[in-house]
């Protein structure tokens, strides 16, 4: 996979939305957000065709800008399933059920990175007081919650601790903001940063990882609990968890630098739940 395949822009949204007008009644709709998967048509199309083949049903990928939007579409039934973050999953734990969690480097886990520019001497969060910070999304675990909860441990909030906190709505954008000097630091998904280090090394080379979080549950695929038992959702769950068994599935996973998608218990996200508790949120 090269950079062009993995990366992309908002242009993909238009492409993804267009088929909705002619969607067949049986089409399965999967929600995505570029916060996590800032990719282009090739990756999206590969994933879509692999899932369609496995389900033997057309799959439509619906993309929204924020986790909040995509969670909302999931909850209101506009999409049948969505690839969301562990944080919003836990926020709506009572209404959502897990369909599968990707494995990366053999584990369904990832970290949150606190990054600064390559020349910045900051050793950790404590050195960044009063500077401008970039979050990816207020509903992102790695791109917000981890840092916010770290601040909560020292009795601070992002608004007070940083002179200004901005939301870029994309992990890659956080890396860009720090690399370009727009912000001094950023909270970013470790999986995205490591993948960018492979496909876009000149971008990540301008940043440095100041600190890493503990290992936390990888962003899962989820569906509304009341629809988890419907044949479409069950078929989608099976297709998802058997992607690595088909050529198209392996290609799609390869483009995403993922091993496979496995079944997981909600307890996988206990780490995130603890951090939520630290900032005063509960499941």
């Amino acid at each position, binding site marked *: 996979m090269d950079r062009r395949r993995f990366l992309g822009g908002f242009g993909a949204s238009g492409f993804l939305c267009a088929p909705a007008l002619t969607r067949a009644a049986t089409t399965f709709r999967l929600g995505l957000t570029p916060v996590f998967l800032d990719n282009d048509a090739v990756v999206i199309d590969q994933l879509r065709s692999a899932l369609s083949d496995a389900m033997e049903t057309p799959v439509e990928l619906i993309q929204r800008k924020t986790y909040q939007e995509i969670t909302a579409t999931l909850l209101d039934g506009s999409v049948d399933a969505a690839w969301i973050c562990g944080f919003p999953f836990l926020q709506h734990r009572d209404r959502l059920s897990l369909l599968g969690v990707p494995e990366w480097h053999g584990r369904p886990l990832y970290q949150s990175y606190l990054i600064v520019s390559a020349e910045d001497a900051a050793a950790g969060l404590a050195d960044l007081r009063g500077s401008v910070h970039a979050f990816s999304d207020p509903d992102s675990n790695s791109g917000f919650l981890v840092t916010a909860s770290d601040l909560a441990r020292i009795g601070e909030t992002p608004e007070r601790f940083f002179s200004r906190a*901005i939301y870029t*709505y994309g992990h890659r954008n956080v890396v860009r*903001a720090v690399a370009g000097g727009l912000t001094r630091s950023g909270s970013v998904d470790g999986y995205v940063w490591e993948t960018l280090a492979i496909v876009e090394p000149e971008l990540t080379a301008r940043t440095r990882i100041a600190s890493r979080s503990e290992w936390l549950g990888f962003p899962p695929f989820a569906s509304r609990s009341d629809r988890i038992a419907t044949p479409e959702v069950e078929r989608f769950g099976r297709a998802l968890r058997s992607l690595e068994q088909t050529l198209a599935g392996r290609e799609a996973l390869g483009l995403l630098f993922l091993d496979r998608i496995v079944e997981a218990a909600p307890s996988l996200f206990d780490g995130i739940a603890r951090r939520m508790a630290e900032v005063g949120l509960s499941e």
Partner: protein
Amino acid sequence: MRHRGVANWPITIRVALATAALMILLGLVASQQVLSRLGKLQDERLREFARLHVEGLAVALGPFVLHKDVWEVYETLDRARANSTGQRILLTVVGDERGQVLAATDPIRAPVDSSIRRFAEGAVSVSEVTAGNGAPVVKIAAPLSVQGREVGRVVTELDVSDLVAQRRTTTVALLAANAVATFVIALAGYFVVARMLKPITLLASHMGEAGGAPQPIPEASIPKSDTVVGRLFRNFNEMAGAIKSRSDAERRLAERERFVSLGRLSSSLAHEINNPLGGLLNAADTIRTYAERPEVVQQSAELLDRGLKHLRDVSRAILEENRLDRSGRPLSATDLDDLRLLFEPETSRQGQVLEWPPTPSSGLLERYPSAPVRQIALNLLLNASSAAPEGGNVVFRLRADQEGIALIVADDGPGLSDADLARLMSAAPVAPGGGVGLRLVRDLVCGLGGVVQHHRADGRTTITVDLPALGVM
């Protein structure tokens, strides 16, 4: 003096220079027009570019600035930069309504939340932007409005070094082209004028550059086609012929003047010859009558001898005056004696008193040619004698030293008339009716490099001729 120097330059050079000056003037005016037009076009293009840039940003950024969405402002600026062609935009800074930076294309230079003021310093509005002041970077500032409300401002640094370089290149090219055109046209002007003035140059060369007298233009050099120039040349040739004829006539007249002088002396000289003749004849009779008285014969023979010697001297002086070829002989004391022998009877005849100078020491007179000096002295003396009244005074003085000699002739006559003075003192044409004696004096003096001075005081007219010392003739 400088002005005179330019005025003395050949007309071909002057025309070429005038052409060059006019071309330079024309070139400057034309270049100014071209540069002004170029500047206007560049500025129009620049303003259009700046206007599109700012308007595009205003539309795209307005809502983000309103919500102070730092990332979207940055993202939009970044996309605009990536999409813009060329490298004209060096930096764009977007500030909120409080003048704090929201985002910039280069956040390192313009950090978030810093003041936008230092970037806005020296910035002009879009309608005033120009590349004409030579600076490689210009700044423009424009407000950002959303629904009529000003929510922030944009400051952009534009790289206009290419436009400045274009102006400089154009200036240099214009200067070079004008210089070449000026040189070529001035050179062409020189050759054209030189060709046009060829007849004039020919005329000038025959006008008397060599030897002073106009020389006729050979018939072969007279153009057949150009009737005006041909007519001019023929008229010139006729004029040159007339001048030559007149010059010849004047020369012949001067030749005659010597005889004229003698003619004026003839009656006096006839007396001078006639007077001793009576005495001589008496002496001859005495010899015949007293042939046997040796002492009487002896006395008469001596008388005869003296009389005949006097006659011999007079005739020699006359012959000497008439000799055609005297030019090579130097002046000597004998010439002064001859002059006196020839001239004194004239004063005697009129009962005038003649004051004659003593003969100068030898070696001082030999520096001058005999013929012209004798002619000058004789003419002045004859003029003085005829001017002086019966029983008047005629004075001749001679001052000779190593520097030169001065011939001074004075009389107590009524003085020279204006016409005579004009003849003696100037080169003005000789009025008809008068003699040429005084003009001949002037011409001869000029020929010897001397000067004539006229002085009239106390009823006496004094004419002084100073001749510089010449080498031995």
